[in-house]
């Protein structure tokens, strides 16, 4: 149960990373920074008052989308076809820059706000209190997963998103505006990260330093679930969430190492992740 709640926030954190890797092949080290940025945006908009939470949430997400689109246009497209280590280095550079810029713009103190309207009181599940906002969070994550799935599998544009990962030249030949498609995908991924950051603001304090922890967690989740797979990310988030919940109770001594062990085990036995697609057979 508690594992599920953390799975929800892990999913929102990681799904954009997975989406971007799946479609663009980019390993985004700055993903955690965009997560933090979403939270910063919401905090700045609400001025730290939970009353404005629902009102400003869409604005914060929209701002994240815009940031994502700009970053893709200005930086990402220049490294799309370059070796992996350039992509890693570029996104690492963005991580460093965003870290310091947000310190300058938003200050170094911890940002957090109260429970949003409608979720102030815990609910009781089998007589045990459970935060109602967690249920809300699970709902939001489930809705995000479902909407994303509907978009990818039930809309024409979603089909293009999936296709671009397989065969970019073909789409170009069909007259699809692939550069625009890439911008949309990247912005969507960053928007999801920003959304994840914004909705976690009532539950966690955001400050400098959060981005680095967040991106490592996100990596673990998508590696376990399968890079590029939405459902894999969901499974990965649930697994990691539950393992942490379980580990905290049973073997607290080793809880740090636990997730890394899981990550290594998955990579050893199913390198493409639990629900990922094995790399196409080369001929």
């Amino acid at each position, binding site marked *: 149960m508690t594992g599920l709640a953390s799975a929800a926030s892990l999913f929102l954190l990681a799904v954009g990373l997975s989406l971007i890797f799946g479609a663009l092949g980019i390993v985004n080290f700055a993903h955690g920074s965009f997560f933090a940025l979403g939270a910063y945006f919401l905090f700045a908009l609400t001025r730290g008052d939970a009353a404005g939470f629902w009102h400003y949430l869409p604005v914060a997400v929209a701002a994240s989308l815009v940031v994502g689109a700009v970053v893709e246009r200005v930086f990402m497209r220049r490294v799309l076809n370059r070796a992996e280590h350039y992509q*890693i280095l570029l996104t690492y550079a963005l991580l460093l820059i965003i870290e310091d810029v947000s310190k300058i713009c938003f200050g170094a103190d911890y940002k957090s706000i109260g429970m949003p309207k409608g979720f102030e009181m815990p609910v009781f599940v089998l007589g045990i209190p459970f935060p109602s906002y967690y249920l809300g969070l699970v709902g939001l994550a489930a809705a995000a997963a479902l909407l994303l799935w509907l978009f990818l599998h039930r809309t024409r544009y979603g089909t293009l998103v999936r296709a671009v990962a397989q065969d970019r030249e073909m789409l170009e030949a069909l007259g699809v505006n692939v550069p625009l498609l890439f911008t949309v995908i990247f912005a969507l991924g960053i928007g999801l990260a920003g959304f994840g950051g914004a909705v976690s603001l009532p539950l966690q304090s955001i400050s400098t330093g959060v981005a680095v922890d967040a991106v490592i967690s996100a990596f673990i989740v998508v590696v376990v679930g399968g890079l590029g797979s939405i459902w894999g990310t969901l499974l990965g988030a649930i697994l990691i969430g539950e393992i942490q919940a379980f580990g905290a109770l049973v073997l607290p001594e080793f809880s740090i190492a636990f997730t890394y062990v899981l990550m290594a085990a998955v990579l050893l036995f199913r390198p493409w992740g639990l629900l990922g697609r094995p790399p196409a057979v080369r001929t």
Partner: protein
Amino acid sequence: MRTKLAVAAVVLAVFPWFLHDYGLQVAIQALVLGVFAMSFNLLFRNTGLLSFGHAACFGAAGYTTALLVSKLRWSFAATLPLALVAAALVALVIGFFSVRLTKIYFTMLTLAFSQMLWAVAHKWYGFTGGDNGITGLLPPGLLGNPKGLYYASLVALVLVSGIIYIVRRSPAGYTLRAVRDNPARAEAIGISAFEYMVAAFVLSGTLSGLAGFLHVAWQHSAFPDLLYWTTSAEVIIAVILGGSAEFFGPAIGAVVLVVLEAVVRSHTQYWPLALGMVLLAMVLFFPSGVISLFQRRQREEVPRAAA
């Protein structure tokens, strides 16, 4: 060519006598990172494998030295062989499991392994001192004197460069590049890619251990940070910043990175911002590394044996 190398050697040899104390510290740091970067690039350049686990080898050697000195009162220099053995063993384990994977999967698995080792160092208070680390490791004699340490690091850099140079020209070096260029073709001339990549990983990791040993001699302490992924990130930055395709690119990248950091930090607390800007500019405008700024033309990689 030879005369130029000789000139460089002479310059580096007399260098400490013209530096003030702090400059010497910066120079040592640059040399140690240079050794690490050259060692890292032995794997990266010859196999194309981007390891995020070299911190494990670097830190394993560092911790071996720190533990032997602090617990068993070994003399500092005497720990070097065991430190290298520890780095080699860690590299063997990580390499054995990781080189089967390619690209980002390899990177992630090496990351996972080194983070496990970090978690152990961080948690095992009774043995490693946990996050409080091991401190007060003043090396006696040569290694304890800044000039001595400078020369020791310089010798290490020369040694590592020599080893890399020799390996590069050897059949095994060619085999590694064959595997990197075209793994299927390499298999089809009767090469088991796996064992060569493990061997390269172990050699690269062992030499990284030399850097880890020097780092502890320089810092007089060992902390779990040695094993943390940011240590791997730093060496990757140095390598790519300098230019991984050039023989001395990684060492030059290390010098640039360390000197830049020292200069920027003395003026502002926003070093990460500055580093980010430099990396951004590098990726976008001079992807072959700093070294390309000093060259009139982009050199193709011409293997020396054929020249």
